[in-house]
């Protein structure tokens, strides 16, 4: 087992505004937004590292950098101790190792596909070397694992509820035999009772398969339940990081305290 599953060392990413010819002729200064600014953290194998922060804080950009959907401008990104920024092509190996669960289960599954096709796709596309009957068994097995029925393989994604869809997305990630899963707000489109189901499922699967989660959320209570370690992001910078226990019980940064204070709680003592 490697020392870290994911390691970011001083990673930065700036998005530049597209320059028109007029901008070039007039020598308008280049303007850009630094979405991620010198961020460093380590994610331990088999653990959950959660990134919290408000919209625009750079959480999702980090998710995209880690899965290779964006390239960092500076710093180094290591997946299982291998640098991803040294110009090596990111191939099937990488795709087998890292998978993603997206926020919106209504847009992350093809509504025309049957559930079986959605889940078996990674087995074929990532050349896992399974025969068709093996793939079929695996789909049935995974559907059971995520709390659905093997017969659901014949249904279309559009027939399913949000919670069921997110279960399919999780089964698809498992089908790829991923070790590292980047979850970008996986429950923020779900109702609270369904959210509890999905979070319980994700923790069960982590125990069973030893998955590493990079868990991105703006919801502090969800993070409290999921995270072993937490990083708090503000305007592209990591303002605080540490074990979840510590960050929640004794937040060091004023911004973390403000985020915690803003959480609306159902407890009556919170009623003013």
């Amino acid at each position, binding site marked *: 087992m490697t020392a870290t599953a994911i390691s970011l060392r001083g990673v930065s990413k700036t998005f530049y505004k597209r320059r028109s010819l007029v901008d070039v002729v007039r020598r308008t200064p280049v303007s850009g937004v630094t979405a991620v600014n010198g961020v460093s953290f380590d994610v331990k194998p088999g653990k959950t590292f959660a990134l919290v922060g408000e919209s625009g804080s750079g959480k999702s950009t980090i998710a995209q950098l880690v899965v290779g959907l964006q390239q960092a401008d500076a710093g180094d990104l290591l997946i299982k101790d291998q640098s991803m920024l040294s110009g090596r092509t990111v191939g099937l190996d990488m795709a087998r190792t890292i998978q993603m669960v997206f926020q919106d289960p209504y847009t992350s599954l093809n509504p025309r596909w049957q559930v079986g096709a959605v889940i078996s796709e990674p087995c074929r596309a990532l050349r896992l070397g399974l025969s068709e009957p093996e793939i079929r068994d695996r789909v049935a097995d995974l559907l059971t694992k995520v709390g659905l029925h093997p017969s659901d393989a014949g249904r279309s994604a559009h027939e399913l509820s949000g919670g069921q869809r997110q279960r399919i997305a999780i089964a698809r990630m498992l089908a790829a035999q991923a070790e590292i899963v980047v979850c970008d707000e996986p429950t923020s489109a779900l109702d*609270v009772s369904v959210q509890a189901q999905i979070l319980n499922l994700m923790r069960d699967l982590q125990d069973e398969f030893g998955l590493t989660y990079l868990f991105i959320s*703006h919801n502090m209570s969800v993070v409290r339940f999921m995270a072993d370690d937490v990083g708090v992001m503000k305007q592209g910078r990591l303002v605080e990081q540490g074990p979840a*226990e510590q960050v929640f019980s004794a937040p060091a940064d004023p911004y973390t305290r403000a985020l915690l204070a803003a959480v*609306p*709680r*159902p407890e009556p003592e919170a009623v003013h």
Partner: protein
Amino acid sequence: MTVVLDSHETLYEPRRKPVVPDMPPKMAPDTNQGTHPLEPLLKVEDLTVTFGRGETALTALNGIDLQVAPGELLGVVGESGAGKSLLSAALMGLLPREGRIASGKVTLAGDRIDTLGDAEMQKIRGRRIGMIFQDPMTSLNPLLTIGDQITETLVSTLNLTSSQARKRMLELLDEIGITEPQIREKSYPHEFSGGMRQRVVIALALAGEPELVLADEPTTALDVSLQKQIIGLIANLCKTRSAGVILITHDMGVVAQNADRVAVMYAGRVVEVGPTAQLMTNPMHPYTRGLIQSIPPLDYRPNRLTQIPGAMPRLRHIPSGCAFHPRCPQAVDACRQVTPAMERRGDRQARCLLYADDPIKAGGVA
């Protein structure tokens, strides 16, 4: 390039100002200031909304009874598909074409509004019922400055002259916490941040001095840190005006901190109503308890979250008896056959056989 000033989002404190004196006097419902007035502002009785007709008709809202007092904030919670937004559409007369009010009665300060035609309802909306929607970007006209939008609303709802309206508009901007109103009234919606835009939407909703404000998920599109301020602003401005508020949300936390009373909806019915603190600490209905327990705690990390199994049923497949029985940990055989009636315990009510003296007689066999 206009810079969007976010700084006073955090600095803002609601300021209370008397309503402008030269306004035409409102039918101020000021006789009943308590939480349980004799004459509620809004009274919804046995409201049933169906889609389609005849055999295939679907009942989307089923026997809704609700009351809102002047100055009271009623929270309506429930998961998607519970009928929360349909309820607000029914109250505003904005049901989709296929939907209709099959039975029941809605009265606003004694005036029946469920039987009004489109033209009459148009006069009620904005003037007597203000509306705040989820997405501030789509509630505002991107081509008009915010000052013009509010002024226009004031002219059309209150018949003010344009100079009166402009004066009132600047006061409103100040009330919702926009500094330097004279400068910022010239801004367009895209120049404002999400939180500022939602403040403008609140100003628009309150421009007609409505008796009732319907806020449908007003903070869902905003960051958590803005949530408190925006809902606090709605609550404060409506309290000072003695306007009733119906706050529709899926977030139990939002309701806990702001509502005077809470109504919990499930599959088109109100399953529990009660004062906020009591309902949150000691929920009567198993669904309410499940919703509260599903929220992950903030002060420790449990091994598992309490979850409600299954999902909200679709309209076409609403279970017999109590619609919640397939998901209910306390369900007994009778729950499958008997539709529970609203059982009253002091100022609280719940639709659950747990509280029926005689479960079989409780609601009649469904």
